[in-house]
């Protein structure tokens, strides 16, 4: 982020002091307050749609910690949602443990899964790591089907206790706040971490791992930290969601190909390597998808209503957006806003990182790997 160097010297908590935040962060806070009061004006169905959207915001943010910050692209983040969700559901069903206690265990076990995948991943670079993350959820789903006596196979686990004993109907607003609370909490936590010294190291790893090592820091340690943190938060979201109407403990909901890909799409569309962008991307993704499923307009020539082919239309819109705005929507909006603010104030905005987006930096590090590591290529 371009403002990293401006305010890097305060106490961590001080950085969340609204008065010291930049204009766009203050606007963001106003937006959050707006979200908090939204249930007053929306109906129950929309409240649940938004709750699902917040969960997806958390999914995308959890992906962003490891992939957006350290540049380790994960194609199978669903594995962590799955470990978190199934752990909590199994503890609840098998031992009657209240969700309030089983959810943290789910997050913990997901963190362990992050460690298991993260440590070997240190030895792997570029496509090798992507491959391992790509097959991890497939293996897990197969194990779930193979041991269906425990995991109930392709049908998933049902009748998990809802959080706080809330029943589905009549408590939509409560579930809205649960999801919003999780979203805001994770957002604040991740902003704190990524805007701290550790966050600077994460970013530095993405930019140039060798330079980090040269500075006497161990990139491996930080990469594992990022992996475990990301897995824990993904697992937390997965664990919470199975105890709400927004999700259930089944392979399709937590670990399908669609889930794995859409998390990446959300984070990149919103803006990779910014946390806020990923969070917003997750929310927008769900809202867009829900909206499309309600469009009755008939596409000419093929004579099919959009609502019947909503997934296809969604994929095509995604392609166009990725193609047109590879830096992400949030960054694009900020740039637009920054330009107009700069115009108003009559000064130019200078980017502190040489104007490269995180995505470009990840490209560079992958490109470096692909071209055999000769740095002076360009």
């Amino acid at each position, binding site marked *: 982020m371009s403002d990293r160097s401006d305010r890097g010297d305060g106490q961590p908590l001080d950085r969340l002091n609204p008065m010291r935040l930049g204009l766009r962060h203050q606007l963001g806070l106003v937006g959050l307050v707006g979200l908090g009061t939204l249930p007053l004006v929306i109906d129950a169905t929309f409240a649940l749609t938004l709750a699902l959207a917040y969960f997806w915001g958390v999914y995308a943010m959890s992906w962003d910690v490891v992939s957006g910050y350290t540049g380790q*692209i994960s*194609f199978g983040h669903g594995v962590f949602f799955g470990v978190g969700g199934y752990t909590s559901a199994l503890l609840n069903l098998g031992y009657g443990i209240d969700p309030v206690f089983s959810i943290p265990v789910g997050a913990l076990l997901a963190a362990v899964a992050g460690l298991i995948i993260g440590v*070997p991943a240190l*030895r*792997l*670079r*570029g*496509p*090798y790591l*992507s*491959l*391992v993350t*790509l*097959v991890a959820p*497939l*293996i897990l789903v*197969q*194990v779930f089907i*193979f041991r269906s006596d425990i995991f109930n196979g392709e049908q998933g686990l049902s009748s998990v206790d809802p959080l706080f004993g809330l029943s589905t109907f009549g408590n939509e607003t409560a579930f809205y706040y649960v999801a919003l609370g999780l979203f805001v909490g994770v957002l604040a936590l991740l902003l704190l971490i990524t805007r701290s010294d550790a966050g600077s190291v994460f970013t530095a790893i993405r930019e140039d791992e060798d330079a980090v090592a040269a500075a006497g820091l161990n990139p491996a340690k930080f990469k594992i930290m990022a992996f475990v943190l990301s897995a824990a938060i993904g697992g937390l979201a997965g664990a919470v969601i199975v105890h709400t109407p927004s999700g259930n403990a089944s392979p399709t909901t937590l670990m399908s*190909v*669609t889930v794995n*890909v859409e998390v*990446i*799409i959300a984070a*990149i569309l919103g803006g990779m390597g910014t946390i806020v962008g990923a969070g917003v991307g997750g929310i927008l993704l769900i809202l867009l998808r829900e909206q499309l499923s309600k469009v009755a307009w008939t596409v000419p020539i093929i004579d*099919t209503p959009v609502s*019947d*082919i909503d*997934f*296809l239309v969604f*994929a*095509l819109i*995604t*392609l166009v957006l*990725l*193609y047109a705005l*590879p830096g992400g929507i949030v960054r694009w909006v900020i740039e637009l806003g920054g330009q107009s603010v700069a115009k108003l104030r009559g000064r130019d905005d200078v980017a502190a990182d040489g104007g490269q987006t995180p*995505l*470009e930096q*990840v*490209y560079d590090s*992958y*490109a470096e790997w*692909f*071209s055999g590591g000769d740095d002076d290529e360009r």
Partner: protein
Amino acid sequence: MAGISQFVIQSTIRSGLYALVAIGFTLIFGVGGVLNLAHGASIVLGAYGVYLATTVLGLTTGVGFVVGLLLPAAFSGLLYLGIIKRFDHEPIMVMILTLVTSIAVELLVLNTAGSQPVAIPQFVPGNVTLGGTNVQYNLLAVFVLSWLIIVGLFLFVNYTKTGKAILAVSMSDKGASLVGIDSDRINLITWIIAGVLAGIAGIALGSQLGATFSMGRTPLILSFSIVVLGGIGSIRGSVVGAYIIGFIEVGFVQFISNDLTGIAPLLVLVGVLLVKPEGLFGRELAE
């Protein structure tokens, strides 16, 4: 012993199919340094191209096979021109865009041809008993075809002008352009060839298992595994990788336990990566 001969024949045939499935993926990886996650989509288009021509349009099987090769070739070429060229040297964006493209193709097939599996014609119908096991001519044809393609590709790359240009681009596109090779054109040719190869794989798989909109997913993972196992971008390595995975899979099912069918190769792959992160044969370029 009947068990051993059965094992060898089954594994050899299966491995031939796997090599066929992976070779287009390897080619693109070797030449352009691109992980083409839309490889599975090309496979789907191959199978459904045949379905479209023979079942929907009622054309002959021969014409069907031609459509099954042309459709993925065109798709692959357009993918290169439309997306890959613009995001050249941005491997992550390429991976994500090819992944989303392949999902769009799956959904297109789903929305036009439906979710029900469909059958497509075989290369050669009929069966023969070999070494105590039943073998379909279709699979024998696939086996022979895969070796023809491997040898053909080898000859093409080493003994034709275009092939040598492909080799040059795979080594260094900047170097190649210095000696007057149009690397864009070479890349486009590579993508089209890879599309045709994926089409053949799609027809082979579709005629064996039935075609579905999601039939390209397993082959994509398989290709990925084979390529990583055999060394990135090496055609020779990929063929070896395909045979290793084919033999392990059949052997595992036949001699150990059939509980893990489908994930045995993935487990092998993860194991190899843990022990030897660069694959069995390290990193080579296409030969």
